[in-house]
């Protein structure tokens, strides 16, 4: 342990010396002592054995002649031997014959039977040695003698030896100490010096120091030389390393600077990319705005040109001479052409920019055919052409309804244009595997093969040869793009002299029933059929009335609880009410009175339908019509019609509000409506319209969407959230290009959407007639 805590090599050497010499001495002493002890013991046993033999031979006669006294005399001679503790002579039979003890109290005698056939045995036990020897006389065992002796002599010998050994050991160790101090000078001190230098080097990193040389050329000298040589090497290496490190630092700094530079460049570059992107986005936005503005700003004046020129041709404001009429017709034709051209250019650019959004739905082919043919027929009639259409009922395509019709109109328009007078144009559709093939076949002159490919290019006009044909040259290009946007293809089959056939495919719509339901529902909404509240607690009678009225196009609501009838009427504000007299718990007379006294329902016409024949009572209570059951359909409808017209007549003071910022259009619409007998009031912007509607409820609103201050969308949203104006009929008339979302919003919240891109005047008048039947009947 001491060796480990003290690292000094000289101490280690000293201790090693001491340990080695000490251990050797100890071993030697131990060996000598052991040997001496063993020898001593053997001598002791031999002495005892001799004594036993003497006693034995001197006791033979005593044993043989049974004379213990004689034997004891012999034993008593042992008194002179101080080490003998006791002795005994035993007869041949093992019986104690004679005994001797130094200490009378000590009777501890051995048992001779332990001999077991041997002549003599001895053993050491409890610091005693016992020897048993058989007495043999003339070759015959005669008895046994036992001698017990102490080993005090042995112990004292051992003690003496240990003392001597200790003294020798101490002397030797001192000598070893002296010798090792000599060794230390020769071996340890140079090593200590070396270690001191090594420690200094490792602590101070000073590689310039050197270990002192020793005399001689032993391993120690070699070690010191090698160490010094190593220090020289390290010194050199360290210098080289420091230089390399400095160089590396320099290079790292250079690289870092380069990287910084590159990073700044990348940042600058990415910033410029970002700016370019922003510019591109801004440019794209400008382009969108431009297109939107174009469509609005170009169409609005054109609409005025077209509208007023048409009004002038009607000669409502005085007769025109032939030249005036011709000029006005030129104006009108030119305007129409310009409008078509603008529409086509805008459409094409929108398609090219990928910004044309389609509202794909299930479109019934026969319905679309019918609508398109309806529109195009007048054009065909002008050239005495036959326009035929055939499509399997229930056939639907997945398409944008408006664009589908546009495609059809373009193709039919082309066909009409290029087919001579009296020709035939056939529109047909049939189902292929997963598509619908639509064909427009004409009996025209056909298209030469060399022109068949170029015909779909923009601005290519087939009619170059024939200067009289009019058109933008964009129709087929747009048509083709539209078909392709739907995932279909547009193609042409033609033989010069035997007509042309333009055909295209569209994906087929599998579900057939749903689109029809949707169509009919929308039809009802847009038509805004007058609502009739049928108050009748007899189920069968109520269903009969509902059947009659629904077949005439009325929107029927049934009420079989007379107690709730007043509230329902106040809430629904129906165009008319039919009422039974005999009802529980409230009868018709009472109900009629409360209707006429409640300001909310006082103005609603009431038709009494009853088996009680008391028309006078009914009239006195304020009933508008009185029908006695059984009810005839014609009588019922006539009575309801009378009520409605009566009501319209009363409400004629309520005008139609035209909201339009463009003065020309506003005036034109006003003229158009006045021409058909409607009372018109106008608003030039959104806030005016808002104020007017707030002041008094108009019969209907014709609303432009793009307005100064407050837009049409905002007005619509306001009106629809207000319960007073929630049911106010609104027609939207706009030149704005609508997104599908905007279109669906308008369809949901208004009665009609008219777009100025298409001819709209006739549609407007027709829809007004349906929406406000009272006015119509008055006029007729």
């Amino acid at each position, binding site marked *: 342990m001491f060796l480990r805590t003290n690292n000094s090599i000289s101490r280690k050497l000293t201790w090693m010396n001491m340990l080695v010499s000490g251990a050797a001495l100890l071993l030697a002493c131990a060996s000598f002592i052991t040997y001496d002890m063993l020898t001593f013991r053997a001598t002791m046993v031999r002495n005892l054995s001799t004594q036993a033999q003497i006693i034995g031979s*001197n006791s*033979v*006669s*005593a044993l*043989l*002649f*049974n*004379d213990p006294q*004689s034997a004891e005399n012999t034993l008593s001679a042992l008194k002179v031997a101080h080490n003998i503790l006791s002795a005994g002579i035993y007869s041949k039979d093992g019986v104690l014959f004679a005994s001797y003890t130094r200490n009378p109290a000590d009777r501890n005698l051995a048992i001779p039977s332990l001999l077991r056939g041997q002549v003599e045995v001895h053993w050491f036990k409890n610091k005693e040695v016992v020897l048993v020897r058989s007495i043999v*006389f*003339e070759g015959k065992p005669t008895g046994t003698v036992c001698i017990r002796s102490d080993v005090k002599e042995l112990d004292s010998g051992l003690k003496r030896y240990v003392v001597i050994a200790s003294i020798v050991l101490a002397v030797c160790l001192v000598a070893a100490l002296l010798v090792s101090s000599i060794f230390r000078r020769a071996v340890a001190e140079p090593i200590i010096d070396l270690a001191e230098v090594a420690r200094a080097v490792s602590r101070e990193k000073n590689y310039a120091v050197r270990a002192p040389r020793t005399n001689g050329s032993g391993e120690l000298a070699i070690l010191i030389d090698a160490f010094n040589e190593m220090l020289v090497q390290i010194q050199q290496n360290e210098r080289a390393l420091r230089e390399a490190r400095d160089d590396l630092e320099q290079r790292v700094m250079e690289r870092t600077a380069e990287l910084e530079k590159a990073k700044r460049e990348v940042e600058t570059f990415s910033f410029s990319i970002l700016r370019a992107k922003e510019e591109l986005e801004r440019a794209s936005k400008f382009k969108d705005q431009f297109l939107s503005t174009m469509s609005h700003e170009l169409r609005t004046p054109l609409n005025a040109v077209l509208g007023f020129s048409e009004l002038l041709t009607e000669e409502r404001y005085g007769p025109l001479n032939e030249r005036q009429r011709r000029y006005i017709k030129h104006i009108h034709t030119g305007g129409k052409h310009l409008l078509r051209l603008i529409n086509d250019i805008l459409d094409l650019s929108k398609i090219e920019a990928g910004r044309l959004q389609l509202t794909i739905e299930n479109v019934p082919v026969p319905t679309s055919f019918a609508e398109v043919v309806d529109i195009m027929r007048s054009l065909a009639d002008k050239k005495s052409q036959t326009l035929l259409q055939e499509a399997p009922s229930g056939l639907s395509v997945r398409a944008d309804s408006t664009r589908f019709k546009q495609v059809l109109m373009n193709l039919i328009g082309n066909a009409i244009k290029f087919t001579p007078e009296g020709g035939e144009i056939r529109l047909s559709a049939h189902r292929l595997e997963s598509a619908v093939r639509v064909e427009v076949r004409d009996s025209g002159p056909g298209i030469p093969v060399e022109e068949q490919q170029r015909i779909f290019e923009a601005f290519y006009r087939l009619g170059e040869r024939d200067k009289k044909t009019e058109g933008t040259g964009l129709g087929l290009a747009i048509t083709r793009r539209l078909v392709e946007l739907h995932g279909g293809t547009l193609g042409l089959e033609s033989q010069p002299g035997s007509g042309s056939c333009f055909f295209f495919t569209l994906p087929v719509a599998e579900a057939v029933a749903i689109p029809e339901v949707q169509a009919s529902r929308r039809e009802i909404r847009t038509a805004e059929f007058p609502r009739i509240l049928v108050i009748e607690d007899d189920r069968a009678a109520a269903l009969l009335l509902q059947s009659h009225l629904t077949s005439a196009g009325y929107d029927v609501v049934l009420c079989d609880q007379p107690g709730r009838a007043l509230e329902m009427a106040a809430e629904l504000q129906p165009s008319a009410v039919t009422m039974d007299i005999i009802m529980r718990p409230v009868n018709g007379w009472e109900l009629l009175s409360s209707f006429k006294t409640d300001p909310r329902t006082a103005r609603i016409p009431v038709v009494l339908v009853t088996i009680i024949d008391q028309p006078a009572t009914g009239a006195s209570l304020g009933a508008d019509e009185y029908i006695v059951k059984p009810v005839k359909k014609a009588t019922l409808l006539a009575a309801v019609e009378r009520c409605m017209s009566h009501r319209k007549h009363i409400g004629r003071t309520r005008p139609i509000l035209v909201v339009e910022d463009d003065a020309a259009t506003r005036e034109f619409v006003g003229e158009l409506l006045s021409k058909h007998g409607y009372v018109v009031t106008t608003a030039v912007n959104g806030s005016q319209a808002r104020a007017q509607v707030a002041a008094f409820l108009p019969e209907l609103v014709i609303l432009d969407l793009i307005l100064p201050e407050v837009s049409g969308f905002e007005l619509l949203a306001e009106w629809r959230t207000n319960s007073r104006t929630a049911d106010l009929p609104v027609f939207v008339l706009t030149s704005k290009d609508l997104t599908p979302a905007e279109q669906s919003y308008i369809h949901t919240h208004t009665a009609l959407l008219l777009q100025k891109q298409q001819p709209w005047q006739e549609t407007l008048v027709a829809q007004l007639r349906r929406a406000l039947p009272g006015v119509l009947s008055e006029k007729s």
Partner: protein
Amino acid sequence: MGQSSDTSSWRSGTRPGLLSDFQRGRALLRGLVVALVLLVTTGLLAQQSKPNEYQVKATYLYNFGRFVRWPGTVPAAKGDSFSVCVIGRDPFGSILDSTLAGESLDGKPVVLRRIAKPQEAGECRILFISSTEEKHLNEILTALDQSGVLTVSDMPGFTRRGGMIQFVLDGDRVRFEINLTSTESARLTLSSELLKVAASVKRNGRSGD
């Protein structure tokens, strides 16, 4: 024996009600068996540990032969065998025969002879003279003079009358007296060991000690 039956009676006495007749009988039987065994073994041990007088005397006769040296010239030592003789009525019976059977002394086999007349004792090494020959003692001793025969007897006054070794009883112990004059005149050498253990050593009938 007594203790065993005591134990038995104590057990039956203190718990009379607890022991059945059968049990009582068995306890009694066991007591008897133990008593018998004890009787026999103690008797045998007594016999063994206490050899009778003539057995000891017979052994002594033999052992005398081991401590006496006969000169080669005497007639007694000339024979091929070591003769032990008994004259007169033999008190040993078969004990002497069995003691000496197979033994040898002075390098010769021991032979036991029973003789009637002193003339027959010429080749005997040791002659035991029975006490029945008391009347003829002088005659016998005279006849054996110079013949080298060791004379032994247990008759009283033997050594006083010229005999060599006489057995005496010291209590139960058998000891012997020696008449050294007689042995010396017969040229016999007695070992000091023998003299050491003799009850008394005399010269011509008087005690030498």
